[in-house]
């Protein structure tokens, strides 16, 4: 009884903190329609800032709390809304999610920059460990009592805000129809900013409360994930009800402490299970949620624009890419070749997103985790030989891909009847689950009767050898690079062919208007399921290649943040284009890594010059900044670049000149007159110079591209927008 009470109190405390974080999520989602995946990172940043004030600079606790909770956190919330979120209107779901991912990754990088992860930091309980009182025979610390008290106050407070104040009622109106609210004299902008301020403060409070309870040591990733768990609670409340959100939070908190307390010690997986529990709960909630109403397309188009190339031009560009890679192989050393290979393989995984998100409008936040599943299957069932001659067999690879497709189907199935956001969260839950339970399954279990010893991820690292298909052996880095490039090109051309087929048109129809596709007789669930399985299969293939290219893989290879970064960079490159996937993959695998290491090397060479180390840290934050800027250009970088260089087709002479210059630079490198980095530099300069030179020599080719292609990015006409408002008013008649 005594023990039960101890665990119950601990569970209530954890639940209260989950509830606080989750109510912040619900608040910002209801008023701005943006699901803030950065909530956990905001909590993390606040916990670090509080530590800095309280323990770093020895401020008194009330002052430190006031500064973080009342001043800095709300300011961060407002700043995020004003600078970033406001610009996301009329963008697709994926753009909105990716921007919050960008903020999450940016805040993580920022925190690691300011607070060196190598230095241990700990938070203490409010009023210290000694401050406790006896409640029903159990000791409760003041800190725990404060956490529960805050939870109750906030639950009641937000409920009152929503139901009994003008501001709260208006806040609920914002998400339904901002235009209508504005007509009635409401101020949706101000309300949304207010809710983001409140959301920021709630995240901060959750972060500061939970740190000492969960051991006290501050870790950037752990804290971010801890608060991310509160998503499950928000789902309980269907992103609307504050009561249900808190009920879900308490359930989560209690369940996780009971697992800790009552699962037999012989179940080694129990501690992993406890960590993974919120994500398992999230998944179960998704299964039992009632079906949403089918969404129609809004009359106003989303701002993303993608053009589909012809098969012929796809084949041409594929040949060019292969030629470039073959030429580069002649001059690159093997470590550069290795990182280019990894980049192109990330590109293959990104292609799974091009199909799923770009063509079908569904979201997968954990593509790399699907790669992990395929890798594990291949490791256990798909290897032949031993030692240096060990290889992945073709059948092993195919089995890995097939299993991944089936797993993908099983994961997606419960979420397919729901809105796109729920599928995204289901995949996120899956990704965290894979990290917490499957990859963390490193110690062998013994099966009771047969005395088999078995673990899914033995010893925490898997050695994955090269692939061998018939006579083709990918053990040399050059062949591996060529093969990866060919696979990328083949899948890319395949996707473009798919997009142009009747299947691809049906995907597009479903993306543009699910309601219209359904009333024409399209079985949406079947279509979504099929496309999700194909996409998971591609991610699985990419995952096996990635593991094989890396040689040995561990938990960090498949951590959820890598998936999130890849998703973000692919959207930055252009989620609707095969070239965007290549760009996203290369950015994820090669470019930023290379950039960082360049700056880091420079900073050590120059005796720790402050400037270079700042630059190297900045280059870690950079991807996030790029992600955040998506609001301005939601179609991604590739369509932009294509537009900039298109006029050069008219200025053939200039183009030829550029190609010649590039060839000369390449030959100089090939004959070792110049170093490799000069080739990169020369290519960059030529790329920048070409349009400028073209404009000088043949200005008539460079008329405004917007005028040349009517219909691209044309703003919707005012009468149509007016019609929406008028219809909304008409609909509102009781």
């Amino acid at each position, binding site marked *: 009884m005594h023990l039960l009470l101890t665990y119950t109190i601990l569970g209530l405390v954890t639940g209260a903190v989950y509830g606080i974080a989750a109510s912040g999520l619900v608040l910002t989602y209801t008023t701005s329609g943006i699901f803030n995946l950065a909530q956990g990172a905001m909590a993390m940043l606040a916990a670090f800032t509080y530590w800095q004030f309280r323990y770093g600079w020895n401020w008194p606790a009330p002052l430190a709390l006031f500064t973080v909770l009342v001043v800095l956190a709300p300011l961060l919330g407002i700043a995020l809304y004003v600078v970033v979120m406001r610009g996301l209107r009329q963008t697709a779901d994926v753009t909105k999610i990716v921007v919050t991912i960008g903020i999450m990754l940016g805040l993580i990088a920022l925190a690691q920059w300011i607070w060196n992860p190598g230095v241990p930091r700990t938070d203490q309980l409010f009023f210290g460990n000694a401050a406790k009182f006896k409640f029903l025979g159990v000791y409760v610390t003041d800190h725990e009592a404060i956490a529960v008290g805050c939870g109750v106050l906030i639950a009641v407070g937000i409920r009152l805000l929503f139901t009994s104040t003008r501001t709260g009622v208006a806040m609920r109106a914002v998400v339904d129809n901002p235009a209508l609210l504005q007509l009635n004299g409401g101020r949706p902008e101000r309300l949304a900013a207010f809710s983001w301020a409140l959301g920021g403060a709630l995240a901060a409070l959750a972060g500061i409360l939970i740190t000492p309870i969960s051991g006290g040591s501050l870790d950037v990733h752990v804290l971010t994930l801890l608060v991310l768990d509160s998503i499950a609670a928000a789902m309980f409340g269907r992103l609307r009800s504050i009561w249900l959100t808190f009920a879900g939070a308490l359930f989560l908190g209690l369940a996780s402490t009971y697992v800790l307390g009552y699962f037999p010690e012989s179940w080694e997986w129990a501690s992993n299970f406890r960590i993974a529990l919120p994500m398992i709960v999230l998944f179960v909630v998704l299964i039992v949620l009632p079906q949403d109403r089918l969404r129609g397309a809004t009359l106003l188009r989303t701002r993303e624009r993608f053009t589909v190339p012809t098969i012929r031009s796809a084949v041409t560009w594929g040949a060019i890419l292969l030629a470039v890679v073959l030429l580069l192989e002649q001059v690159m050393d093997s470590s550069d070749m290795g990182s280019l290979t990894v980049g192109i393989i990330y590109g293959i995984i990104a292609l799974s997103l091009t199909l799923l998100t770009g063509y079908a409008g569904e979201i997968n936040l954990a593509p790399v985790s699907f790669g992990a599943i395929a890798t594990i299957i291949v490791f256990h069932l798909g290897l032949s030989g031993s030692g240096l001659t060990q290889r992945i067999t073709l059948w092993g690879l195919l089995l890995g891909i097939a299993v991944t497709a089936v797993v993908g189907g099983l994961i997606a199935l419960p979420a397919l009847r729901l809105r796109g956001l729920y599928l995204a969260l289901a995949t996120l839950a899956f990704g965290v689950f894979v990290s917490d339970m499957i990859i963390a399954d490193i110690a062998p279990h013994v099966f009771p009767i047969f005395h088999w010893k078995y673990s899914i991820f033995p010893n925490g690292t898997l050695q994955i050898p090269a692939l061998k298909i018939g006579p083709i052996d990918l053990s040399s880095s050059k062949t591996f690079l060529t093969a990866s490039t060919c696979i990328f090109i083949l899948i890319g051309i395949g996707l473009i062919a798919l997009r142009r087929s009747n299947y691809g048109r049906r995907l597009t129809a479903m993306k543009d208007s699910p309601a219209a596709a*359904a*009333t024409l007789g399209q079985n*949406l669930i079947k279509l979504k399921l099929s496309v999700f399985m194909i996409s998971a299969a591609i991610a699985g293939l990419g995952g096996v290649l990635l593991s094989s290219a890396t040689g040995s893989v561990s938990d960090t290879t498949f951590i959820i943040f890598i998936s999130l970064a890849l998703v973000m960079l692919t959207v930055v490159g252009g989620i609707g284009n095969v070239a965007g996937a290549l760009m996203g993959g290369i950015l994820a695998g090669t470019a930023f890594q290379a950039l960082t290491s360049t700056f880091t090397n420079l900073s050590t060479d120059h005796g720790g010059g402050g400037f270079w180390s700042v630059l190297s840290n900045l280059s870690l934050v950079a991807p996030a900044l790029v992600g955040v800027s998506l609001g301005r250009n939601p179609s991604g970088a590739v369509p932009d670049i294509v537009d900039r260089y298109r006029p050069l087709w008219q200025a053939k002479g200039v183009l030829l000149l550029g190609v010649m210059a590039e060839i000369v630079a390449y030959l100089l490198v090939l004959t070792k007159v110049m170093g490799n980095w000069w080739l990169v530099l020369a290519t960059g300069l030529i790329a920048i110079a070409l349009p400028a030179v073209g404009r000088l020599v043949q200005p008539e080719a460079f008329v405004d591209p917007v005028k040349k292609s009517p219909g691209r990015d044309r703003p919707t006409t005012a009468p149509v927008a007016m019609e929406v408002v008028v219809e909304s008013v008409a609909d509102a008649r009781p």
Partner: protein
Amino acid sequence: MPVLEVTDVCVAFGGAQVLSDVSLTVVEGGVTGLIGPNGAGKTTLFNVVSGLLAPKSGQVKIDGHDVTKAGPARRARRGLSRTYQRLELFTSLTVRDNIQVAGEIRNTWGRRGRIDVGAETDRILDMVGLGDVADREVSELPTGRARVVEVARALMTQPKVLLLDEPASGQTEQETEAFGRLLRELVEERDLAICLVEHDVGLVMDTCQHIHVLDYGVIIASGTPDQVKDDPVVINAYLGAP
């Protein structure tokens, strides 16, 4: 024989009763009008019939089959097709692809009754008069013509019942006239059953054989155009009490 039968349908949004015991039938080879002031519940009724919205109570039958529990796709397979008051076009596709994809969806229903999508698309483009804009992006069209694309798309599934939700709004006078001719042609040649929601009185009077009047979620009058036109209850609903 009625191809569409709606019996005692009730819908409430929160506390607001939007449809109360609405019953109506649509017969083949004719145009049935559904009129009423803004906010009367016409589009809500269409959403119930096409399966986008579950009614609180009541029954929907298509071609003699009870489809009350079925989803939108199953109803389409029973022969229902519709257009939308707020356009629901596939905005990243061209006009031709918008229509063609409907035929391609039709061909996923099963082996029976597969159609030659290419030829059928050309035929329908020609019939509704969209041939000149077939390869344009659908988002470039003015609203009036975009509505015709929706009708053409709905026809590609070869429906038995066609629900048209304000197809003439945003059309010019000539476009509306041509549209009226198209409707009569469809009814005569294809034996189609059409249910038309429309505010253009001329179009309704010219094309409908039977009219239901909906106001505040209740059918207040039914009959031929002439009967409905002179019904004091209808006049009251539109213009207020004399």
